[in-house]
């Protein structure tokens, strides 16, 4: 209960949480909320490229499908990609960073050099290469993003673990006979959890932007999937006449990413009182 109070006490976190909860609700209830739910797959070529109206709130696309309905269904794809890709990166990256930071020496060095390799080129470059090799589909986008994103978490956890390792409470736990595994999971992990949570929220935003960029380049789900990045690239040849076509998915991406960034910022303020004092 008190956790919710704190969360909604911070304005940025509250707005972010509100936007994300809305996104999740929209994704779940897309079939009920959509004005033309069938338009995800159906064409009405006689109604193509109509400007926004009472009938079609966000206008229609090149196939005459209702853009508003497609945006709602697109939220499902966006959430799926972001949650699985970021989740997988965390699951891979956190243990690696933890072990590397805890043992240091050559194990840690070797693990971090491995992550250096992945960090040496922009994430999107490797992701494009992987997605292109495997073929365009949502699953492959998720795979490409996970494979290229875990090093960020490994790095973060590595640095935090290194900073905690020499602390007295760790030494005390070890002196009491706690195993290495126990120290890592029960003593170090809880202390770096807030940093991981904050990064996860911001990482969701980053991942959504990267996934949309892959969709824009034609590497995401094939047509007629209502993926937001793909919708923007479809709209390109009809600009500037059909201004609404690209505006709707672009704004949808903006709002969702903004939600995750605000939540991340807010959580940072809440979870790290030192910074909080500085910024307020």
């Amino acid at each position, binding site marked *: 209960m008190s956790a919710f109070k704190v969360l909604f006490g911070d304005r*940025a976190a509250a707005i972010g949480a509100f936007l994300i909860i809305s996104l999740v609700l929209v994704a779940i209830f897309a079939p009920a909320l959509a004005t033309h739910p069938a338009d995800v797959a159906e064409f009405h070529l006689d109604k193509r490229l109509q400007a926004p109206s009472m009938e079609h709130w966000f206008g229609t696309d090149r196939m005459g499908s209702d853009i508003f309905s497609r945006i709602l269904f697109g939220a499902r794809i966006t959430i799926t990609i972001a949650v699985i890709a970021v989740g997988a990166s965390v699951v891979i990256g956190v243990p690696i960073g933890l072990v590397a930071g805890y043992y240091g020496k050559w194990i840690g060095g070797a693990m971090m*050099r491995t992550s250096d390799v992945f960090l040496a080129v*922009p994430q999107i470059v*490797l992701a494009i290469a992987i997605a292109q090799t495997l073929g365009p589909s949502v699953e492959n986008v998720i795979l490409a993003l996970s494979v290229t994103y875990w090093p960020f978490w490994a790095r973060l956890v590595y640095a935090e673990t290194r900073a905690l390792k020499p602390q007295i409470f760790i030494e005390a736990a070890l002196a009491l006979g706690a195993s290495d595994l126990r120290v890592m999971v029960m003593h170090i992990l809880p202390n770096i959890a807030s940093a991981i949570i904050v990064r996860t929220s911001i990482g969701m*935003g980053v991942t959504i932007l990267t996934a949309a960029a892959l969709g824009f380049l*034609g590497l995401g789900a094939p047509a007629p999937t209502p993926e937001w990045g793909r919708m923007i690239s479809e709209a390109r040849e009809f600009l500037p006449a059909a201004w609404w076509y*690209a505006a709707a998915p672009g704004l949808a991406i*903006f709002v969702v*990413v903004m939600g995750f960034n605000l939540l991340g910022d807010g959580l940072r303020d809440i979870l790290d009182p030192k910074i909080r004092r500085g910024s307020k």
Partner: protein
Amino acid sequence: MRRLQIILSRLVWLVPTLFGLTLVVFLIANVVPTDPARIIAGENATAAQVEELRHELGLDKPLHQQFGRYIYGLGTGDMGKSLYTARPISQDLLSRLPATLELTVVAILIAILIGVPAGVISAIRRNSLTDQVLRVLSVSGLAVAGFWLAMELQMFFSTKLGITPLNGRISGFGPEKYTGFLIVDSLLAWDMESLRDTFMHLLLPAVTLALPAAATLVRFTRAGVLEVVNSNYVLYESAMGMPRSLITWKYILRNALVSTVTQIGLIFGALFAGAVVVEAVFDWPGLGTYAVQSIMRSDNKAIMGFSLLVGFVFVIVNLMVDIVHTFIDPRTLE
């Protein structure tokens, strides 16, 4: 001496990092067995011709031998030939590098000129209306999809208003090519018309790239300044009755901007990533467009060459940041 040590150890690590990167990209490229020999030979080639070409290119060898051959080639500066341009990849990359560097450097200059002062103002006038507006703007700047912004700007300023050119780096042939950097070349040739044209072409892509970079800088500068403002020594200087402006300029900014310098280095890397997509929208003849084209055509060696070059630039930029860091914050040498 310590400085030299840091530089050397970084340079030594450059080799295994780039080797690993080559391996990773090589593996990605070979996950699905495509047949480059078939593509190069063309549709009308007979099976025997394809086989011959495959042998010539070494594609009939096992993967580890192909990899060894590639690494050996790299040692002699040979990255292989592109499947499509049929030119040496190193040549392709070098001819496109200036376009991307020019774009990213202009973008980062714009970002610094806007982001750093805005961050300082935001921190000094904490919680004022200016601060609130700047904070909302910086959060928004990080949430915009670059390719979408690029398209919207292009639609509005180029297609609708016709103020800026639609795409490319310059209209016509441009000035005599000495460096490949059109701003420099225009100045060398003292060709003001080309210079103006270059800037007009640069405007939209550079602004698109600069926006998230500026937003990041505002946030980091603000946080950095705030941390210092609340430190004990600033409290002490204030208690000693030093003028506020002196404290701000001499004591706060110098210390606060250390983290901003690090951030600028990281941002430069992010700009290379952003350039991949933004270049695609503006048809900018740089590395990003080349990478996207190579990837779409499964031109594996070109992709590997691009990744290696970007990895190299990344590591060098980070090294430079570390070196600059040791000068503005001597504590890192201890």
